[in-house]
């Protein structure tokens, strides 16, 4: 990749990998900008409540808005935070940004069953998809209980020194490590990069 033609900027945009410290500084500076210009902090998981509310709302709108609404939907989706709010467009942007980045570098993947998973649980797509679905559901349930996820609590809350966020961060990291070693064992460490 180092002999990609073009100016240095294009070369950087086409690179597969940036130094993680550069990426970290970039995300930190991005937080300054959202605080300063939009009075917002980076976060993603409340958007999943909005999407869930949208799905539910198509079937049964009374559960999402109005006097008979579910109290959580009422708390998360209202006049102050409309259905299609700042963050839901941020999540759409994350998809687009990763798409653009991977197209520029040719780092496109069609991963269905990661190597580590296959080593431990076999090549079945169905099995992997069930685990991914359940994992996603469990994770978001936890995120909404805690009030945020790795971005909203982890990065945005962490940088604000929030008591809630550091509590979340330590709990989720400890449990993630315990769960990963339970799933893959010590031997899994040799198969992560497969």
């Amino acid at each position: 990749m180092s002999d990609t033609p073009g100016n240095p900027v294009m070369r950087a945009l086409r690179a597969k990998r940036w130094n993680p410290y550069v990426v970290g500084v970039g995300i930190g500076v991005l937080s300054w900008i959202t605080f300063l210009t939009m009075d917002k902090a980076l976060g993603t998981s409340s958007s999943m409540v909005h999407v869930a509310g949208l799905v539910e709302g198509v079937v049964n709108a009374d559960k999402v808005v109005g006097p008979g609404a579910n109290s959580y939907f009422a708390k998360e989706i209202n006049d102050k935070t409309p259905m299609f709010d700042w963050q839901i467009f941020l999540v759409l942007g994350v998809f687009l940004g990763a798409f653009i980045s991977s197209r520029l570098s040719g780092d496109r993947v069609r991963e269905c069953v990661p190597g580590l998973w296959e080593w431990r649980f076999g090549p079945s797509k169905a099995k992997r998809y069930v685990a991914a679905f359940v994992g996603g559901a469990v994770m978001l349930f936890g995120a909404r209980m805690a009030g945020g996820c790795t971005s909203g609590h982890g990065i945005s809350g962490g940088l604000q020194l929030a008591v809630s966020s550091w509590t979340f961060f330590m709990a989720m990291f400890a449990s993630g490590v315990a769960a990963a070693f339970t799933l893959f064992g010590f031997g899994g460490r040799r198969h992560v990069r497969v």
Partner: protein
Amino acid sequence: MFGFDSPTMILGGLVTGIVFGFLLQKGQVAKYRTIVGQFLFTDHTVLKIMLTAIVTGAVGVYGMLELGLIQHLLVKPAQLAANAVGGLIFGVGMAMLGYCPGTGVAAMGEGSRHAAVGFAGMVVGAGIFAAVYPSLEKGFMKIGEVTVAVGEQVTSKVTLADITGISPWAYIALLAAIAGVVFTLIGRWERQQSPGA
């Protein structure tokens, strides 16, 4: 119910997201092996990115607060039982899926198929939480609530500086020091793994 934010905020959110997603993809954290590799301690990219982002962000945000460029923080309520139990549940789900919500969406952008299945699961998980929330909101969600009085108001949106009375800059310096130690140890470990690299 299908209300929209102002056009400025929509555009701002979209541009912020594109930059965020671009950075996540270039940082290699839109990949299953990077996320699970962090939990198994074979790849420390996640810690490098998160700690750098936190320290950088903290300096800028607290700096802007001191200078009066921003008027307030955007802290989430300290309800320690919910924060901790939610975090424990979150970690289990994240290890199963191999992505967090933001990196999962970035992985979909990169083309990962199982991340898309995980996204459907996330939406369902959010819906399940909404369904059980009415039975939690008055009891469980309030356990371990930490509050401080700010003027007339009592708030649970508290920082470490608020509850200890120590300057936030002391915490930021401590975080920077911890990050420095962690990065040094990671660097030493990486050199041991691949001598000559």
